[in-house]
C-alpha cells in the first residue's frame, strides 16, 4: 500500500527533484507502517549498489504512516531501487525463517536422541543419538 507522495509539506522539495531528475529520487508514504518496516528497509536499501541515499521518517509518533526516501545514481530509478531492496529483504527473511526451522528441528531431534540414548542405556543398548543426528542433517539438506 505505497503511494508516491505528491503534495506533502515536509517533502515537497524532494518531490520536485523527482520530476527534474528522471525518477532518481522518490518519496513514498507507507500507510500503516512504523519503524518496524522503515528502519529495516532503510538498512537494506543502503546495501543496494545503485542507491545513494535511503532514509525514512515517522513525522509524528501518532501518525499512521512513514515517509520513505530513496535516491539513486541514475543506473536505475529510485522506485526500482526500493522494489529491489524489498525483494532483497524478502530473500533474507525467507532464508532466516528456514534456518530457524532447521535449527528447531535439529534441537528437537537432539532432545529425542538424548532421550533414546538414556532409554537405551537403561536397557543396556548403545545406539541412539547418532541416528537422531543423522536425521537432523538430512532435514537440513532438504531446506
Amino acid at each position: 500500500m505505497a503511494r508516491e507522495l505528491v503534495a506533502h509539506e515536509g517533502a515537497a522539495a524532494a518531490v520536485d527533484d523527482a520530476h527534474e531528475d528522471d525518477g532518481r529520487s522518490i518519496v513514498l508514504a507507507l500507510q500503516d507502517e512504523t519503524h518496524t518496516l522503515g528502519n529495516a528497509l532503510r538498512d537494506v536499501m543502503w546495501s543496494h549498489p545503485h542507491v545513494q541515499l535511503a532514509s525514512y521518517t515517522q513525522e509524528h509518533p501518532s501518525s499512521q504512516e512513514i515517509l520513505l526516501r530513496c535516491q539513486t545514481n541514475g543506473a536505475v530509478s529510485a522506485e526500482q531501487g526500493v522494489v529491489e531492496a524489498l525483494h532483497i529483504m524478502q530473500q533474507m527473511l525467507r532464508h532466516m525463517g528456514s534456518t530457524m526451522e532447521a535449527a528447531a528441528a535439529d534441537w528437537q531431534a537432539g532432545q529425542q536422541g538424548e532421550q533414546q540414548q538414556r532409554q537405551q542405556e537403561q536397557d543396556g543398548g548403545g545406539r541412539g543419538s547418532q541416528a537422531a543426528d543423522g536425521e537432523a542433517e538430512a532435514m537440513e539438506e532438504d531446506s
Partner: protein
Amino acid sequence: MGRTKKAGKKEEPAAAAAGAAAGGAAADDGPSTSYDASLPATLEEQRTRIICKPDRNLHTTSTIAASQWASLGVDAAFDLARFKRGFDISITSYEGDDMEFEMKGVSCAVANSLRRIMISETPTMAIEHVFIVNNTSVIQDEVLSHRLGLIPLKVDPRLFQYKSKEDAPSEQNTIVLKLKVECRRLPNGALENDKVYSSALQWLPEGSEMPDETSCRFASSQAALVPDGVRPVHDDILIAKLRPGQAIELECHCIKGVGDEHAKWSPVATTWYRLMPEVVLLQQPRGQVAEELAEQLPGLLHLSGSGDKATVVVGDVRKHDKLLEKVRRLSGEERYAPYIQLRKIKDHFIFTIESTGAWRPHELFNYAVQMMVSKCDKVLEGLQVFPNRSF
C-alpha cells in the same frame, strides 16, 4: 542448559584474516559476512566490532552503504550467497516456553524489526469483555476484569478471526469462559474456595450461557475447532480471595488481538537480544601483569606458566558475563589498557524469546519473519514491477 546445537552443518572457517584480533581468543568464528576483497584490518574491526571503552563505546553504527569502500576496491553491495554463507542460527537453550539462540550474520535493523513484531504485532487470544452476574468479593468489578484480562490463555490464535467492533460475537471470533465460585466454611472449620485460581475458569465450547445479555450466539460448538480445549497457561494464578458467603459469578469473552493495542495480547513476556561480547588481548601480557590480570578476572583469563614466563589465555566469554564490565573498567586503567579490551560483535545476537505460552518460541520467530515478508509484499503491491534485478 548450556547444550549447544549447531544449525549450520559446516563449521565456520577459522577467523578470517582481517577482523579477528591479533593474539586474542575471539568468541566468534570471525566476521560472518566478510567481503571478497578484504578491508584493511582497522576498517574491518570498525565494521564488525563495537569497542567498549570505559566511558564510551566506539564504532556503534552498523548501516553500511554499498559504495562505502568503493575507493578501496571493496564492494559492500548485498549478495545473497554471501548472506547465506554468513547467516546462522544455533539454539543454545530451549526449555518450555523460553528459548535462547544465537543469530549471526544479519543487521541489527532486521533483528530489531523481528523483535518488535513479536512483542506488538503477533496475535493471541485474551479476555476482553467480562459480564459480571455477581461479585460480592472485596475486589471491584473493574479491577477483577483487568486481572482476568491479563491471564495468558493456551489456545492457538490462528484458529480464530479478528473481531471488529461491528462484528457480532460468534464461534469464529470469540471464546467464552465461565467463572462461578462461592466461598463457604466446611463443617470441619476449613474454608472452601477462599482462594480463586485461574484453574477455576471453565471453557464453554457451546458459547455464552446468557446469550440475551451478551448477544453472543454460537452457530455451532467450538469443540471440533479447538480439539485441545481452552485453558489458562498457568492454573495457579491467584485471581481473588474470598471470605465465607462471598461469591463471584461471571462470564469472560475472549477475542483475538495484538500487543500494540494492549499488552495482554502480547505473546511474549518479553523478547530481547544483546550483542555477543568478545574479550581481546591487544598484546600478550607477560610476567606480573599477566598474573594480576588472571587474578582480577578469574575463570575468564587462564594463566599459563609462572614468574616472568607467565602468560594468559582467554577462556569462554559467555560463561563469565559478570566479569565483562570489569574488563571494560580494567581496559581504562593505564596499567592494563595496552593488553586487554572488551568488544561486541555487531552482527552476532544472543536472542531470547520468553513466550507466555500460547505460541512456541520458534514459531513466534517464524511468524515475525512471515509478517515482515508480508509487509514487504504490501508495499510492493503499490509499486511498479521491474523485470530484472539491476545488479
